[in-house]
């Protein structure tokens, strides 16, 4: 490089620089062997023109000598004289990066590049690379995305079929149907509705009493009967058990870790007490830093702060925590910006490391012994705590997310896309900034938070979110099928102060929720995916309701909510010491067994947006031959036997117990014939093999 500069210096003013340098053998080599290859294979993405078109790859411009020497985002690409150490050569050989991406250049050409670097990178091309180091994030453009806009429910729309809607939700839904030339299906029968409500609100099948109660109601009184059932279910402690499980799926909960039962039970209680959404969020992000009214609340806050400690990925705690925070609360994949600016959303690497600083300033004790004591108890918790002042401070941006390549120190602040002006700084020399982060995340004035929250409730009750990608409200996620409805629900949610139960109630009492799964062929044909909700989605029961149902039908399900301290002392199981089956609800069982994966059960290492609903032979084998089924089916048969004395009465009783409806006459006939030949035990077992047992219709 020095030599080159000297040559240039000597010759300036005598003849034209280019010509003079071209006389050098190295430059001739470049002109003949290197430049044509660069032009043909590299300039498209690595040139000033590409930079101007916003198509520059990796910040690398290969169309000037200065650009080659400057390198790209990941550092220099050539070490003059040392081809083996030059990233350019390694990329051409497809060793690290793979360039050109279509296919590797011929070996002879790569050898030319090695020779060129050996010669000291002779290159007569003048000029400076265009000053674009990184593409950068266009926040103003990003902010225009629908999800960041203020809530705008508009007026509930006018509809043609004015006698159909039972409430505001239905008007929004019907309007979209009518726009697409669709009409709503008939209402599901009362038994199907009761079964849906019980499973959706509590994760449990209806009891025969609940079925009998609704059976006697005159048609005009049905809505009132549903209403009282919904209120009964919302008031049941089993509501919290079921909805806590939904929440745990989103935060990558690992039940195997010490004291995790405390956080789980805190969630059950939060849902049962209908904790308002703002404190619910804030306590989970920074419970340890919030002021509490009394010892009880302080204890709860500390427990809530375990959320991130239990998110199951110790190795990259900061990344996995931001992943959970972003997706669960904001529907935003913040973690995409760890290594590079977000490809789709207005989240820059600076935004990522500005938040990361709050977490690097917080610590999770290595084990519960070092944890923080819950006030009023002797129990120590893991959890995310601000307790080590020496660690507090901003953190470095890591180029390419690589911990060995530090960039600048990034001041802690909130993400830019949410603010038109400078985003607020958070934290100080003595505080992590997690408290400010929690207050901002848990603030319903921020429309995204409410939208994401109500969309999850809709997803759980209807079968698919209004935004079908509940963890991605960004530009790469699916847009809402019913944007006004989403904003309507979010607005009501905010008005209620963030009451989850109020949203559940509203949706469960809509006529949309009560639609039959069956629609005429033309409707199905026109809307295969059921985007416009002219009918209900058919849904397979998830793992826990399958387990809980089997136990409940056999009278072996213990509905008590075990205290955390007892769960830790005696981990609850479904199988007793005497090999019979029975126990608490699946939520509290520590070892879920193989049947968990057979029925797409919970994950300890993934954020689960929606449980898979696979249909497989092993599921059938479980229901045909599984030990628990073998143990419980005869018990279920005994219960059926004890409730009715006549043979057809027993068939009917079996249907009421297992399917929450009376048996039709044809079904009674089939059942009688089967029982006569194979007995009641086999018959009851056979009903467990049917689709009706495993699906919500």
């Amino acid at each position: 490089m020095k030599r080159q500069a000297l040559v240039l210096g000597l010759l300036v003013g005598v003849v034209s620089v280019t010509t003079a340098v071209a006389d050098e053998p190295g430059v001739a080599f470049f002109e003949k062997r290197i430049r044509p290859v660069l032009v043909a294979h590299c300039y498209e993405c690595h040139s000033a023109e590409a930079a101007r078109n916003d198509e520059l790859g990796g910040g690398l411009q290969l169309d000037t000598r200065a650009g080659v020497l400057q390198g790209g985002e990941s550092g220099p690409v050539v070490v003059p004289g040392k081809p083996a150490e030059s990233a350019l050569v390694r990329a051409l050989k497809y060793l690290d990066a793979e360039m050109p991406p279509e296919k590797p250049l011929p070996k002879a050409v790569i050898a030319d590049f090695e020779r060129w670097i050996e010669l000291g990178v002779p290159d007569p091309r003048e000029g400076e690379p265009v000053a674009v180091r990184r593409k950068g994030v266009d926040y103003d453009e990003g902010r225009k995305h629908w999800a960041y806009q203020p809530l705008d429910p508009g007026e509930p729309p006018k509809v043609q079929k004015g006698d159909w809607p039972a409430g505001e939700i239905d008007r929004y839904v019907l309007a979209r149907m009518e726009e697409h030339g669709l009409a709503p299906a008939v209402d599901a029968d009362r038994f199907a509705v009761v079964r849906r409500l019980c499973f959706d609100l509590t994760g449990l099948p209806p009891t025969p009493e609940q079925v009998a109660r609704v059976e006697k109601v005159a048609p005009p009184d049905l809505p009132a009967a549903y209403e009282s059932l919904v209120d009964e279910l919302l008031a049941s402690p089993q509501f919290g058990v079921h909805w806590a499980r939904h929440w745990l799926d989103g935060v990558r909960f690992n039940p195997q870790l010490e004291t995790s039962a405390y956080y789980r039970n805190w969630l059950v209680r939060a849902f049962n007490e209908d904790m308002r959404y703002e404190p619910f969020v804030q306590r989970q992000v920074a419970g340890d830093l919030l002021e509490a009214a009394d010892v009880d609340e302080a204890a709860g806050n500390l427990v809530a702060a375990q959320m991130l400690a239990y998110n199951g990925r110790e190795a990259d705690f900061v990344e996995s925590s931001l992943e959970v925070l972003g997706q669960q609360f904001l529907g935003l994949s913040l973690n995409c910006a760890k290594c590079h600016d977000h490809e789709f959303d207005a989240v820059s690497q600076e935004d990522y490391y500005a938040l990361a600083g709050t977490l690097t300033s917080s610590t999770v004790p290595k084990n519960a012994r070092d944890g923080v004591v819950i006030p009023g108890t002797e129990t120590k918790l893991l959890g995310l705590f601000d307790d080590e002042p020496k660690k507090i401070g901003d953190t470095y941006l890591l180029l390419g997310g690589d911990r060995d390549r530090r960039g600048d120190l990034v001041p802690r602040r909130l993400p830019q896309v949410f603010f038109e002006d400078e985003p607020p700084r958070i934290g100080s020399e003595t505080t992590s900034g997690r408290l400010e982060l929690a207050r901002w995340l848990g603030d319903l004035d921020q429309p995204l938070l409410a939208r994401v929250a109500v969309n999850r409730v809709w997803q759980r009750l209807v079968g698919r979110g209004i935004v079908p990608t509940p963890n991605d409200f960004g530009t790469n996620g699916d847009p809402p099928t019913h944007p006004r409805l989403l904003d309507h629900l979010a607005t009501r949610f905010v008005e209620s102060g963030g009451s989850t139960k109020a949203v559940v109630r509203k949706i469960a009492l809509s006529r949309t929720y009560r639609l039959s799964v069956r629609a005429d062929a033309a409707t199905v044909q026109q809307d295969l995916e059921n985007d416009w909700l002219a009918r209900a989605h058919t849904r397979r029961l998830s793992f826990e309701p399958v387990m809980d149902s089997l136990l409940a039908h056999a009278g072996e399900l213990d509905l008590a909510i075990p205290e955390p301290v007892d769960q830790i002392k005696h981990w609850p199981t479904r199988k007793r010491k005497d090999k019979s089956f029975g126990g608490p609800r699946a939520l509290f069982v520590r070892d879920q067994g193989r049947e968990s994966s057979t029925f797409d059960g919970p994950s300890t290492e993934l954020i689960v947006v929606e449980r898979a609903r696979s249909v497989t032979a092993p599921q059938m084998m479980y229901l045909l031959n599984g030990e628990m089924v073998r143990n419980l089916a005869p018990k279920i048969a005994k219960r059926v036997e004890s409730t009715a004395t006549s043979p057809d009465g027993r068939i009917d009783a079996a249907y009421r117990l297992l399917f929450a409806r009376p048996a039709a006459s044809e079904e009674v006939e089939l059942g009688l014939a089967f029982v006569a030949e194979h007995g009641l035990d086999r018959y009851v077992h056979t009903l467990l093999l049917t689709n009706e047992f495993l699906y919500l219709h």
Partner: protein
Amino acid sequence: MNDFLQHTSRRDAVRRLACGVGGLGLATLLADEGLATDVPAGRPHHEPRAKSLIFLNMQGGPSQFETFTYKPELNTRAGQNVTVAGARNAATKIMPHAFPMAQHGEAGHWVSDRFPHMAGVMDELCLIESTYAEDNNHPGAQREILTGFNRRPMPCFGSWITYGLGSENRDLPGFVYLANGQHHGAGFLPARHQGMPVGSKMPNLRNWVPREEQRAQLDLAGRLNRMHLERHAETNDLDARIEAAELAFRMQTSAPEAVDLNRESKHTLAAYGVIGTKNPPRQSRTLTESPADFGAMCLTARRLVERGVRVVSISVGGRRGWDQHGKLREGISRNAAVVDRAMAALLKDLRQRGLLDSTLVLWGGEFGRTPTAENGDGRAHHPRGFTTWLAGGGVKPGFTYGKTDELGAAIVEDKVHVHDLHATLLWLMGLDHRRLTFRYGGRDQTIADVHGRVVEGIFA
């Protein structure tokens, strides 16, 4: 219907005729398996080199230097300080080969003295010295080697293969795993393509009630399902469930037969080490399996392949089996004693039965180890240039592809990214990974996203 498909399905078709399901055309049988609807082409994209694949997945990341890769400079420069790019917690001192290495066979492949049985079959192997993974920790890297991606729960390559080709045996799943079943799921692909546990790991296989009675149960359940379907016409899930029930029913007889090793001769059992082997004492980070366990899995894999199962995955190690951060000599000695005999027996047995030409065997872990020492006598994780091998179906025997530098620290020639490996496996099975797509999340997904190069250099 192309010739290949007719040819490979003939045995199956003949067997079906013998079973009295005659009269059904092949198309009907395919429709039966749901292939008619969910495979884009319904057949391979090109003439396959292999019909089946066995993956011997060495969980924990086996050291290439104590198995199949010889770097003399490790010994001559032992103790010198070097930096290994891409390795996490890389220590700095070069650690020599823990065991003597020697060349075997005509091709002169190197192998450590811990693998005396493998030494006899080295000419079957096509070694890849330059395998490259992104992730450097076990959970992500295991996911990556099985699915191509270290974060998202994507379909396992076995699922992609059965999605593309279906099963050759109607009574067994097309994609089977015999040990650890993690990351063998179908992801967004239709659920029937997920890996299924068969063999001793398969739960609930023994029918509870007598078979005739069970038939009556399924008939009644089927009838009730159809009545129910008429009232609630929706979703092919319900159809899929009827299919699943029938497969479950058939598997109760076909699977126990397929995995019943009592049908094998004493000679074969001994060759695989199912009988006559001792279990060397376990240490903290070694394989949990015994030589007899692993032998039984390899033998079962051969029986399954014989019966037309497409993909058999054997993921051994109890997650950390080959993770020798310390006590490497002891750890690898035990592990080699567990796997050496059975792996060699499997290759020989497949060869003798004429199955090796149509069966691809893949050996490897989620990454390799550093040339440098850790904790004195261990090696750290190193995903940027580790050794895997292929044998059989369509690959060059006695061949080495790719090269790392003189220390085995960095790839210097012909990198084979995990995406490339997957693309190559699919290609050998007759599938073009770029054309084998599934619409999900608003785009046409493939096994290697936009990546994946077919490594033609290893083709026979």
